[in-house]
């Protein structure tokens, strides 16, 4: 496990996930799964970036200063399934609720710009 790179959204910006640069691996817990062939990670221009999506994980490399959109299509094993999107890291927190009440989700990931000296600061 590694330190978390993401910060969960807030009520004022409920679809915005702030992140630090690096390889971000997300997971869904509960009884919900991703539809890998209909899940995308795209830039603001709509271009796809390389990512790996399985039924329960989604990982991609976040570049400093970039903004991405996670376009997630998900299903559930039951009609009232519920799952939680979390980063696969130490002490993960819930970034979003993915339930069978909804099907498609679109979250924005804003990656902090690299700070002088090589460190990055996450900001919303």
């Amino acid at each position, binding site marked *: 496990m590694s330190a978390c790179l993401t910060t*969960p*959204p*807030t*009520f*004022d910006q*409920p*679809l915005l996930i702030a992140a630090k640069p690096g390889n971000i691996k997300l997971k869904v817990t*509960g*009884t*919900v*799964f991703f*539809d*890998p*062939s*209909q899940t995308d990670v795209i830039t603001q221009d709509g271009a796809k970036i390389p990512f*790996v999506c*399985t*039924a*329960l994980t989604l990982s991609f490399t976040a570049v400093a200063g970039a903004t991405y959109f996670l376009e997630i*299509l998900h*299903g*559930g*094993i*039951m*009609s*009232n399934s*519920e799952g939680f999107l979390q980063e696969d890291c130490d002490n993960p927190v*819930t970034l*979003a*609720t993915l*339930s*069978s*009440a*909804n*099907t*498609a*989700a*679109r*979250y*924005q990931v804003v990656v902090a710009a690299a700070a002088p000296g090589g460190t990055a600061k996450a900001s919303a």
Partner: protein
Amino acid sequence: MKSLLRLFAQLVLVAGPLAAQTPRSLAKHCPEELNAEVTRAAGKPTAELGAFLTFGGGADCMTALLLTQYSGTDSLLDRAQQVKAALQQNSSSGSGTSLVSKGLTSQVLSAAAEYGALAQTTSGQTVTLSGSLGGIPAALTRQALIDNCDGIRIPGALCASNATVNRLNRLSYTVAFNTGSTAQSVSGAAAATTPTSTAQVVTFNATTNTITSATGKFVILRGAAANIAATAAAIDKLGTKPMPTTQMTKAQKDSFVAMNNYDNMPAVKTWRSQTAAKILAAPPGDAANVWLQQADALLSAICPPNGPNPKCRATVLTQLGSYAVFVNSYKASVNAFVETLRKSPLLTLEYDYNRPASQPTNSTVRLVGQTVLGGWTLTGNGAVSVYDSTPSSAIPGASLLRDVQIAAEACYDFSKLKKSTLLGHSTASTAYYFQNQTSPAILNVTPGQPVTGVTITGLPATATQVYAQKGIISILQGKFTYSPGSSSISLPVSFTWSNRTELVTNPTWRGQVGISYDFDSLFGSSK
């Protein structure tokens, strides 16, 4: 095709246990989800509650909420046709692909086949139609003719829930048609014998055998549903192949993205804050009602009544309809996928209507049970077969009861061993079949026209039926299939012994050795 479609839909709507909808009803899981978020929020405006009130995080529920403002009362089929025309999906309106082209029943079967409610396979001269009852509402949902109760419900439409489809799927059917030249045999007899005449009057008699068998199955006890681990494993096993679910079209994707842009409108942000505050201030259990009352305000936030774009509301509703059609179909396809992962039925009742060539028709009722214990799969069944008409009294010992059957099989899967061995995914099975032929097997014969594959000598010209000896039939079979490791090659070896068959009273031994290769493995690759 339009009238055919209407007929098919009407038949299904009359027959199916579908739920009518009140004008302001919603996707039923939205209130559940909202209540869960309110409970988790504990009086504070959380990100999850905020996301529920956006298209990016709660697209289905936001769509359902806005569609309550849709005041159209078009009939179901008109609405479906509008949706289909708008989405330019009317690709199934061609003709000439159906199995049978005339007659009411064939038209319904034809439409069902074309819309995916049943499957048609052809092997040699036999065409087999098969399907399950749930396939019909599922096909209607995929074609946007009805809504999915578990998806987004459009006011004025009927819907079928995934649970209803799953219940209907307990009943399945198979009908086999003989389309070959043997489907009808014609025999003739001269009316008079006048040897000198060059022309004779002949009376013809035709025997048709178009339907060779029909089977209906009802699953009494279903196997366990797949859990999330088994479902995820099945998805990941697909590799780069897409899940067998409805794919979002470009137009639907564009609608979804356009809807997401509304989230950033200042008026919509204000609506979100006000709605969240009202929901959190509502009495316990009243959150969904408060949310529902905010639908008009949301539509006004997106499309102000006196705004600059007079077509705004129409544009929004088109986007909502496009997304709703996708969601309803997608959820039906996800449900179908998950159901395919369900374990084998535990108890099944089966009815077979058999019309074998040159034999009297008979019916068989069979009860099939199966259970899995570790690596063992144990299957047992019992059946009773009866003739559909009383056999001729000229056949000694013949009665309506044709035979009684009992069978049992035990199969072991070596891949279930705790330690992997050289046996890999090999399986070993043994089976025993018992049949008490209480009434002789009967063959219908026509003088001068022998039964295909059977040679009978010394038969009187007046004979119309022949029969075999009744008695006990025992069949024992053992089979071992060697499938090493993850190889796609398997080597089955089997032997079969029987003391007799229905017609032949001599014991028989048979051995079989084969080799098979799973070509699907060539096309499936891991990521």
